[in-house]
């Protein structure tokens, strides 16, 4: 058996039938990490010792017949998600020596079933970026082409699943940070509705936009993992006490009567030719499956990126003010308290966090708040209304996930604005608060994966799983990097 061919579902069945042990799975994952991570650099921390303990606990549960679908499954978590006793650097020098003192709620929820955490994965510093090139600890390379980026900000989590190091992983998605790297790495990447899953224990980027996300090789695996993460949490008052459907019951193979909207604003000039062709082919498949496909409009969608790059920096400038060298993290000496603040922040933060703190501070400062921040919040209302109106008529909206396949390392890193444009198709869902998912739709001539994005209405995640699963089954792609 080749570990890199396993899915969560398959591994779970093997464990249940005692064809393999959790300990053996953990060892296979570790061997694979040792074999390929030198090349792709998905991990910032490999939990070699801890994973053996997690595997033992999982094997004990299985021996007692108390195993669940995720028991004993090797996974990874982005290094901005807190796991007690482990590092949580957010890929920043300012948190290089920080050790998490508690578990994020999503980690506690996973621990109920005891999957095996293999380590913490790379990201753009504080999840700010679209390529992991902003990591203070080096870039994560694309498993399909080592000269290209894995996407970002959750590039490490995406590359870890795509290269077969783990069977699923957690990321965070503020403007596309799960869906975009999933598209670049040829796997499934899912972001829930704002308020569907807890943010407690995620290092905050933009608190009104952040959500935890899931990476896996199939839509079914993704839904199995998210089943456990969804739901209200007393430690995050933005989560809502809405019932969570049984996602395994919604997966089916035809889409008769499903209403699919194709927003014309997302098929504009500038989109890569191969991406456009692959997206159109996937849309045709939806029609063949019985879906009712209609072109429609999200008239304010084109303002989403501009609104995002004001709302987000304003929240960043507030959230990152906690890094001051006093209670935890890096502390650089100074002659007085103010100097401690200046020195710590100036040495601890990399260029992108500084840039965004500066924009956010400017856009929310006296005299500029009305011209920038307030206008962006107003645009957000218009965009949100576009989406809520559209989801009265359509079950899902389908777009390309990204305008291009994975770009070259260094291609955009000197031009912040061109990097921001990599998120142009994904930010809308965060601005509107709706769920989104990228699934593989094909490969370019050069072998680079292309993703297609599905969006659904607030708290209608099950529609993404339903449509995504059916599309995946009919596309029958066998994407696997040669690494």
């Amino acid at each position, binding site marked *: 058996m080749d570990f890199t061919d396993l899915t969560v579902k398959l591994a779970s069945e093997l464990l249940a039938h005692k064809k393999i042990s959790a300990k053996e799975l953990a060892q296979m994952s570790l061997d694979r990490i040792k074999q390929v991570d030198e090349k792709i650099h998905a991990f910032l921390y490999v939990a070699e010792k801890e994973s053996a303990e997690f595997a033992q606990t999982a094997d004990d549960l299985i021996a007692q017949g108390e195993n669940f679908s995720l028991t004993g499954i090797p996974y990874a978590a982005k290094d901005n998600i807190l796991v007690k006793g482990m590092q949580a650097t957010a890929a920043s020098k300012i948190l290089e020596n*920080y*050790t998490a*003192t*508690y578990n994020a709620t999503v980690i506690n929820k996973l621990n109920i079933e005891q999957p095996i955490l293999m380590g913490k994965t790379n990201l753009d510093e504080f999840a700010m970026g679209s390529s992991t090139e902003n990591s203070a600890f080096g870039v994560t390379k694309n498993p399909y082409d080592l000269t290209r980026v894995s996407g970002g900000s959750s590039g490490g989590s995406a590359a870890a699943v795509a290269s077969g190091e783990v069977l699923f992983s957690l990321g965070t998605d503020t403007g596309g940070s799960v869906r975009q790297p999933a598209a670049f790495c040829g796997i499934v990447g899912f972001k829930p509705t704002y*308020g569907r899953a807890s943010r407690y224990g995620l290092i905050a980027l933009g608190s009104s936009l952040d959500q935890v996300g899931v990476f896996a090789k199939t839509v079914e695996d993704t839904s199995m993992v998210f089943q456990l993460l969804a739901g*209200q949490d*007393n430690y995050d*008052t933005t989560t*809502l*006490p809405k019932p969570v459907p049984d996602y395994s019951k919604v997966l089916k193979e035809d889409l008769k009567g499903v209403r699919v909207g194709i927003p014309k604003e997302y098929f504009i000039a500038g989109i890569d030719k191969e991406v456009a062709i692959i997206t159109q082919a996937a849309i045709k498949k939806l029609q063949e499956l019985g879906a009712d496909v209609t072109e429609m409009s999200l008239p*304010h969608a084109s*303002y989403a990126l*501009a*609104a995002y*790059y*004001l709302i987000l920096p304003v929240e960043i*400038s507030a959230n990152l*003010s906690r890094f*001051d*060298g*006093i*209670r*935890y*993290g*890096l*502390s650089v000496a*100074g002659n*007085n*308290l*103010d100097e*401690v*603040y*200046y*020195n710590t*922040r*100036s040495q601890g*933060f990399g260029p992108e966090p*500084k*840039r965004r*703190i*500066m*924009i956010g*501070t*400017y856009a929310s*400062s006296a005299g500029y708040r009305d011209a*920038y921040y307030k*206008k*962006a919040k*107003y*645009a957000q*209302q*218009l965009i949100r*209304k576009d989406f809520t109106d559209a989801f009265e008529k359509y079950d899902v909206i389908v777009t390309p996930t990204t305008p291009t396949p994975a770009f070259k390392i260094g291609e955009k890193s000197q031009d*912040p*604005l061109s990097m*921001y444009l990599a998120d142009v198709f994904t930010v809308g869902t965060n601005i509107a608060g709706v769920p989104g998912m990228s699934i593989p739709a094909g490969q370019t001539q050069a072998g680079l994966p292309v993703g297609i994005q599905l969006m659904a209405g*607030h708290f209608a995640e099950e529609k993404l799983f339903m449509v995504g699963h059916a599309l995946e089954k009919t596309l029958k792609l066998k994407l696997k990097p040669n690494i």
Partner: protein
Amino acid sequence: MAISIDEVDRIAKLSKLTFNESEKQKLQAELSAILAYVDQLKEIEGKTVIDLVEDPDSINLMRDDVVEVTTEPEEFLKQAPSRQGNFVKVKSILE
């Protein structure tokens, strides 16, 4: 909209960040480019103001204030760069 070096200085002070001269010039150009991009939001000005519908999901979630033992203070304090007993130590603020 272009911003001046003086404004870069003003924002840096508000942000508690220090930059050298070449960093300031680079920031001036980058921030100006980003602000020029977001200026497109001006286009929606004057458009029909929508009635902001009350979001049915925007509700206050209340719960009882129950004391729970979560993390021991020592766990947090171990992370502090400088401490004295059970306190985090900072530079004096008052002369």
